[in-house]
């Protein structure tokens, strides 16, 4: 019997589509011929909804976009609004934002490495990385009460000052982190099965990656040193010295390595920010009813998943006329077919995992 091409539905209920994503796969035996992501299962109409909310009311809703990196979404939106207002944020607030955003990057990458390893069958990594992520969530909880949907950044600054208690907690997390990352690396880095499952799998060239608009760690794994924290610094990132890990392979393994190295850099940034935390206000003066004169602005930040942009247009009222979000997961998911074609069916989950997508951000 000749095995003809069959169409295989992966999701929306499937253990490893990272949410309610549906992939229409065309499989020839086990070789993938085509992948078509079908989106919209988690669509909540966010962007339209925001048009009926005031500027500050939108912030907590951005938590629900990339729910593994809530602070980064807050930061992206808030920075766009502040840019539109022309608001100068106190330096202390900017540093606290950096600390929170980098903690969030750590949490997001830790969750990612767990999910990704679990997809490839190494389930213990998931539990290890979630233990570390838990500590970071505890920091958020102590700081502002939220864990997953943090709402840790407000227009004009941050909701609370960074006191010694929270700072000490963060330092304790950072002290424990290198050993825990090393534990994960011991399990995976030189593991033959892991190497076989990741090396040379889901390769994308730098040129293709740029054409697709791939951003974040997947782009840096193709050899393009593009990190907005370095290129267009925001929120005082220019004050900190850190490296941007870049690798040239463009495969799943390099994406894994880039993220693992980024975690160490994030820890370094947080330490610098804690050490150099300037005195002063943590919140700028913002009118209670925030009306922004007509104008439009686009601002991007380097979120854990990639380049997160917010376009905000105001019309002089207290509500935005239009908010459009450029979500990194959505853009990165486009490359899936390019990466999967010709690979084996088993690799689709690994490649999908290596892109680090969150459906809350894709479907908005």
């Amino acid at each position, binding site marked *: 019997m000749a095995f003809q091409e069959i169409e*295989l539905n992966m999701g929306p209920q499937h253990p490893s589509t990272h949410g309610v994503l549906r992939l229409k796969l065309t499989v020839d035996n086990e070789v993938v011929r085509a992948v078509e992501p079908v989106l919209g299962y988690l669509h909540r109409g966010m962007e339209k909804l925001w048009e009926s909310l005031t500027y500050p009311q939108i912030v907590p809703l951005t938590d629900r976009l990339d729910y593994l990196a809530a602070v980064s979404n807050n930061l992206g939106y808030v920075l766009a609004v502040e840019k539109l207002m022309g608001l100068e944020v106190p330096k202390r607030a900017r540093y606290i934002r950096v600390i929170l955003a980098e903690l969030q990057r750590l949490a997001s990458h830790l969750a990612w490495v767990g999910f990704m390893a679990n997809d*490839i*069958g*190494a389930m*213990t990594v998931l539990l290890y990385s979630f233990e570390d992520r838990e500590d970071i969530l505890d920091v958020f909880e102590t700081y502002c009460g939220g864990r997953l949907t943090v709402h840790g950044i407000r227009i004009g600054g941050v909701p609370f000052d960074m006191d010694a208690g929270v700072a000490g907690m963060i330092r304790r997390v950072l002290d424990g982190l290198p050993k825990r990352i090393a534990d994960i690396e011991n399990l995976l880095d030189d593991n033959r099965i892991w190497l*076989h*499952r990741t090396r040379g799998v889901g390769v994308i060239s730098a040129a293709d990656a740029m054409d697709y608009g791939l951003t974040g760690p997947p782009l840096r794994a193709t050899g393009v040193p593009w990190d907005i924290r370095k290129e267009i610094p925001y929120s005082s990132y220019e004050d900190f010295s850190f490296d941007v890990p870049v690798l040239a392979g463009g495969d799943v393994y390099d994406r894994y390595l880039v993220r693992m190295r980024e975690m160490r850099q994030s820890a370094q940034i947080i330490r610098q920010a804690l050490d150099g935390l300037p005195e002063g206000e943590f919140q700028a003066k913002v009118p209670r009813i925030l009306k922004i004169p007509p104008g439009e602005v686009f601002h991007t930040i380097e979120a854990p998943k990639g380049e997160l942009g917010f376009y905000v247009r105001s019309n002089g009222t207290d509500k935005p006329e239009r908010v459009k979000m450029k979500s990194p997961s959505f853009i990165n998911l486009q490359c899936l077919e390019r990466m999967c074609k010709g690979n084996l*069916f*088993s690799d689709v*989950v690994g490649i999908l995992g290596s892109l680090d997508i969150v459906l809350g951000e894709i479907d908005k």
Partner: protein
Amino acid sequence: MTGRTLLFELLIPVLKIVAVILYPMVMVIIMIWMERRVVAFIQGRLGPNRVGFQGLLQPVADAMKLFFKEDIVPRQADAFLFNLSPVLVMASSLLAFCFLPLGESFMIGSYTLDLRVATSPVALLLVLGLSSIGVFGIIFGGWASNSKYPLMGALRSVVQILSYEIPIGLTALTVVFFSRSMDLVAIVNNQRDAKVWFGFLLPVSFVVFWISGIAETNRAPFDLPEAESELVAGYHTEYSGMKFAFFYIAEYAHMVLVSSLVVILFFGGWLPPFPNVKALAFLGRVPGFLWYLAKIMFFLYLYIWIRGTLPRYRFDALIRLVWKWLIPLAVLNFVIVALGWYLL
């Protein structure tokens, strides 16, 4: 018929048959519990510890739950084959236990109590053969479900099990060279007489047999047929309730079977360790059955340890491993052992 013959001719065989069903079941329960707890400890969790002592009754509770679940046969499935396949899978692994001795036969008065249900001079062959009948159950189940994930899972499974049976057979044969018998009790007795376990005489055979054994039971890192992240639950995706439990129990029973075989073929079955060391002679006073169980438990623990540590192989690597490495290695090993036996 006197009461005495009734006892020995009827009652004891019946008891043995009950035991041969209960023994794997109890082992499966312990194994499921052990797996959950050990994996939990590896991962820094506690695992189930509420039902019974340290959660020991958790598998029983789970089985009860599955027992009371609705029995679903998907509308598009072929009902006959669909229902047959869990039975086949279960029966094949239980049948194989009939030939597994639990220890040496001993005398009660003038009656010789054989600690196995069926005696056969080719027990090894029968155990290997019976355990692979389960493949039919898997392919029937995958095919009859009439759904894509089970079908792909079943195809993978069959290719995998059939491929890995070759090195298993080839390495088991090297043991037969030394024991000159396929009777499992005779194989153990041979190791006692030789004062060395075959695992130390034939390390390559043991390693190849063990790796293939893991692959044949579809366990991590070779658990592709039911690779959760890819194929949902593989060939038993469409099964629910007790039929699913049958597949689940059969898989664990199969693991117990493979571990028992490894212990019997390579690690002296119920023989105590260090028979040559005088100072450790007291080890021989521990009942052989306990040694046997302890050794089986060790290999079951290895299964769990591996699962807690390694990622999953990809299918092409899995097949490459067996056809390019394990089978040539097993053949080479076979030839060397045969030559060695012939020349010595």
